[in-house]
């Protein structure tokens, strides 16, 4: 009995240790985001200073806005394109399906830097240069295949006879798609959209090579501030502590709400 308990403790300790390592950097920043010092490790009093800097800096707010708008647009377009693509692929002949599936795997498995370089050279070679449009396309290239990947399994699970039944009952194909097929694959579409948002928010490399001059997202701004440095580096860096904490809190709240609402739905079904 004692041996079993020891094994249990050992397992819990291992999981705990890994989680501690994962959260240590985030928690460190969270703590220091409330302390009025620009150097981690030095003492200071409680202060909202970093948050005031974060929310009072128009440059930082601008790049946060840029990031969010870009993620929303890229995810929206990718979701529409990817969902249509998945539908088209699903109903295509096997050979067409295999080819399309294979090609849409390329951006998924390819190194991001290769995708970025290839896109950037192509854009410049055909005279598109670098603009918001090329940036958006770049993000769509990395997001859309993941939308396809998350819609596909739902299509495979779908009951195909319902679509036929709708047609037999006189619905037009377009109406049948909207009223019958779409509701069945909606969970896949939504998770594809969410995935596209996170991929776009996270992206650094493709953004770096396709963005118009002077356009900053959180990724490029933070990278440049830490790597290049400038006169205000220490100050800028400490406002990132606040930014990291805010984002982390939003994620925790989002996940908690999502889990609670799905729990409630399950209970309501019972």
């Amino acid at each position, binding site marked *: 009995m004692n041996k079993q308990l020891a094994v249990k403790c050992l397992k819990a300790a291992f999981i705990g240790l890994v989680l501690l390592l994962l959260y240590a950097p985030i928690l460190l920043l969270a703590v220091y985001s409330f302390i009025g010092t620009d150097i981690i490790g030095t003492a200071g009093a409680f202060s909202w200073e970093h948050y005031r800097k974060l929310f009072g800096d128009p440059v930082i707010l601008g790049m946060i806005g840029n990031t969010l708008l870009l993620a929303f647009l890229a995810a929206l377009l990718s979701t529409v394109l990817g969902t249509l693509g998945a539908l088209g692929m699903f109903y295509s002949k096997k050979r067409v399906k295999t080819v399309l599936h294979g090609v849409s795997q*390329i951006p998924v498995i390819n190194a991001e830097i290769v995708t970025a370089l290839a896109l950037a050279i192509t854009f410049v070679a055909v005279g598109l240069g670098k603009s918001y449009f090329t940036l958006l396309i770049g993000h769509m290239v990395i997001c859309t295949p993941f939308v396809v990947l998350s819609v596909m399994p739902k299509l495979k699970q779908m009951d195909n006879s319902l679509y036929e039944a709708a047609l037999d009952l006189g619905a037009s194909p377009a109406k049948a798609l909207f009223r019958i097929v779409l509701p069945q694959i909606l969970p896949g579409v939504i998770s594809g959209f969410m995935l596209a948002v996170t991929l776009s928010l996270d992206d650094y490399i493709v953004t770096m090579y396709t963005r118009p001059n002077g356009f900053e997202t959180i990724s490029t701004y933070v990278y440049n501030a830490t*790597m290049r440095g400038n006169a205000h580096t220490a100050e800028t860096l400490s406002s990132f502590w606040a930014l990291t904490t805010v984002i982390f809190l939003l994620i925790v709240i989002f996940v908690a709400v999502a889990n609670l609402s799905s729990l409630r739905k399950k209970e309501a079904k019972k």
Partner: protein
Amino acid sequence: MSTTVLILIIFGAALLLGAGALLAYRLVRGHMPHFTRKALGIPYAVFLIFFVIAPMLVILVYAFTDRNMHFSFANFVKFFSDPTKLSTIAYSIVIALITTAVCLLIAFPVAYILARSKMKKKYVILMLFVLPMWINFVLRINAIRELFNWIGLLGEANYFNTVFGMVYDFLPFMILPIYTTLMKIEESLYEASADLGAGAFTTFFRVTLPLSVPGVVSGVTMVFLPSMTNYVVSDMLGNSMVTIIGKFISEYFASDWHMGSMVALVLLIVVFVSTLLTGGFKSEENVRGANL
């Protein structure tokens, strides 16, 4: 801005024209009397041709041409005769191998403990492993940088820091697929193994391990490939002293697109060969934890 709009319009028109031409062709051939669902895939197919296939061909062309766009093997020869390039690739691979091994050593026990646990809310713990992934990637690496700076590791142990950052970043990619495959192993298999007299070790090595191979393989692919190329991690944590293949390409982007394309092409081939060897990326195996 107006040029952008113009380009957008031209591009949209080109897409529509392409789709229209295809449709007209099929109508003439008599294949498509009215709306078919296949046609929904046309915009995506056109998108893939323009922005996935075409760029790969452009890379191929640039890799085998010189600055005047004349066909040339110079980059190819230069690449394979330069010891610094080859050694960079060699130690990129070593860093990626170490990262993958460490990820596996941490992820397998985590996935195994969670999958075998009878805890009701174990998905909450699994969630905790994925949660940090949703913080912006650069902010996350910056957080590690601040931690290392505080404990004095930054600039002191560049390779250790780089590997730590990569493991930190890619760990969920390893945990999730292994967890998924382990969850698929039916309880009755463990019972049968025990009934037939196998001890815990035998069961693990003869039942659990062989059945978890698909998860391990897809985890390994998802960790190994990005850790060869994600130079953001090696730059920010390796104090710009660690150069991996990805960094190479980005440096050439500023100076020589043709050489950059050659390196990219080599990398492309490495990626595709290893994907073929491992049987490819399975769409069912979690997509970055979206299906949790």
